[in-house]
């Protein structure tokens, strides 16, 4: 294998780890409450703007930007849960889809109104330059993003499977009235799930901002990537989202390298539709 091909694949894996991170938030909410957050990509977009604003105001890099974005987005998640989701999740399907879809528009065009349609970006060397490993060139910012994203996704999986909080959340997902009889309050568990799901989009967004331009409409593409990842990985499965995210990152990079950058989204979306035709339960789901 040529070193360029290896470089493309490594780049894809690093990007895919970030996809996996924000998609795991979507899959958590979906698995737990059977709600699709159509604003998920726009949450990531907000995370990117938070990182940008933190840099523009204080000159701080991702060491400050990532935790600030995580906190702000987690707060937003809790607000969204109590103000909107709690009441629409009992309503008809139309209300569920309209609710989060309207939220997506509201966030996207508020950003557009506030920041304008210009492409903003953090300085290229905010994380350090590029370095060579055995002839493979890797940008430090992408490496940092990939590694942090992998760590957080892994942490989320451990949180959900190995801790009391995780067990409580899974209990609510399984049967919320039974969980209530066991003394678990579904409301607070679901609010925590929204905080986590939105928090990880904040982390992912702040990481992406270190190597990608920031623009209000970026959330649309990222939202679709999250859908593809989640339906590929199976609903409610964080490990599934991780595998699918990495896979999509690699597929995107390879198709950008072989066919051309314009076609990478076309390839991913077509793949998504093929999956809906032939394996709607996802790679890891049971039929």
């Amino acid at each position: 294998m040529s070193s360029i091909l290896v470089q493309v694949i490594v780049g894809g894996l690093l990007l895919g780890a970030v996809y996996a991170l924000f998609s795991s938030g979507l899959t958590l909410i979906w698995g737990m409450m059977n709600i699709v957050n159509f604003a998920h990509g726009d949450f990531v977009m907000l995370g990117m703007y938070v990182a940008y604003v933190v840099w523009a105001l204080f000159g701080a890099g991702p060491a400050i930007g990532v935790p600030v974005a995580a906190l702000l987005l987690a707060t937003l998640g809790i607000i969204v849960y109590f103000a909107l989701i709690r009441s629409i999740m009992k309503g008809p399907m139309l209300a569920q889809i309209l609710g989060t879809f309207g939220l997506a528009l509201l966030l996207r065009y508020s950003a557009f109104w506030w920041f304008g349609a210009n492409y903003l970006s953090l300085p290229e060397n905010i994380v350090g330059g590029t370095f060579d490993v055995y002839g493979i060139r890797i940008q430090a910012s992408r490496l940092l993003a990939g590694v942090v994203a992998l760590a957080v996704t892994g942490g989320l999986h451990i949180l959900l499977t190995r801790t009391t909080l995780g067990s409580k959340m899974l209990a609510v997902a399984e049967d919320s009235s039974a969980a209530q009889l066991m003394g678990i309050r579904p409301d607070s568990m679901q609010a925590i799930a929204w905080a986590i799901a939105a928090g990880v989009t904040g982390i992912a967004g702040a990481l992406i901002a270190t190597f990608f331009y920031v623009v209000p409409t970026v959330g649309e593409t990222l939202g679709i990537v999250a859908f593809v990842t989640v339906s590929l990985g199976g609903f409610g499965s964080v490990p599934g989202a991780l595998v699918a995210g990495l896979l999509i990152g690699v597929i995107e990079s390879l198709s950008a390298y072989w066919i051309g950058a314009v076609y990478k989204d076309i390839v991913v979306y077509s793949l998504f539709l093929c999956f809906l035709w032939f394996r709607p339960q996802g790679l890891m789901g049971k039929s």
Partner: protein
Amino acid sequence: MRRLLWPSVALALVIAYPLLFSTPFQQRLGALVLLYAIAASAWNIVGGYAGQVSVGHVVFFGCGAYAAMGAYAHFAWSPLVGIPVGIVVSVAIAAVIGVPTLRLSGHYFSMATIAVAELVRLIVSNTDYLGAGVGLSGPTVPRNVFDLSFISALPYYYLFLTVLVVTLGITWWMADSRMGFYLRAIRDSERAARSLGAPASRVKLYAFMLSAGLTSVAGTLYATMFGFVDPDSGFGILISVKMLIMAALGGAGLLFGPLVGAAILVPLEEISNNLLGGKGAGLTFVVYGAIIVLIARFQPGGILTLIKRVADKRGRRSENTGATGATHAP
């Protein structure tokens, strides 16, 4: 006869509107309201009656628009050719998306339609035959009446009105047929409908295909009025959003819901664009987003449902006051 009084008055007003309000701006506004009402009514068949929320209806709109402009640009045919061509292509695409996704829960359908809309927009933006990023134009100077190229908005107004009446007629007929009953049963509880023998997947697919075909006609009409189409005006996701929000605001699943929604939102958008210029575009969609969230949160049935509920309550109250003497009333 009294039942027909108000509808006839409303219809008379709609027919007389461009004569009563005859400035070019007002006539154009009226035509646009009707055009969006056609698209939103078409969306309403699958989104309202069947309860399957398509966010990618712009695909069909774009097919109709591109078929019309393509027929002129490549073959010098009348843009009217776009109507049959657009319908055929749209119905075929609807079948391709609908067959796999309508078997699954409603969320899948919404996600798949978004993905298809983006996919088609990207493909069209990179296809030279379809004008790539620039788009296609219609006849600059009309050769004959079949080019549907008029300076005044008046002919468009009556053309759109005719198509809207046909669309609403089809919707009404469908809602009143066996299919309409199936669709409403499926929307309320698909599992219950299936267990009672409703062919859910098939009926949903038919509704989707019917809706796709009608949306395509709206796209063709749009392209003839504006004389050109590009990837954003033909396949931009915001056009789907407009159909969806107009139907939901007026009342999804109600015959006149989309028309009411269009009559509120189109003037709002045109006026805010006129007042604020290009800067207003972002703000308009902030307001749109807020309206959608508020409808979903407080009144998923839309304005017409709200009015109906208030009217019912008032009617019941007046009945009660009339019946104070009857102590044995239940």
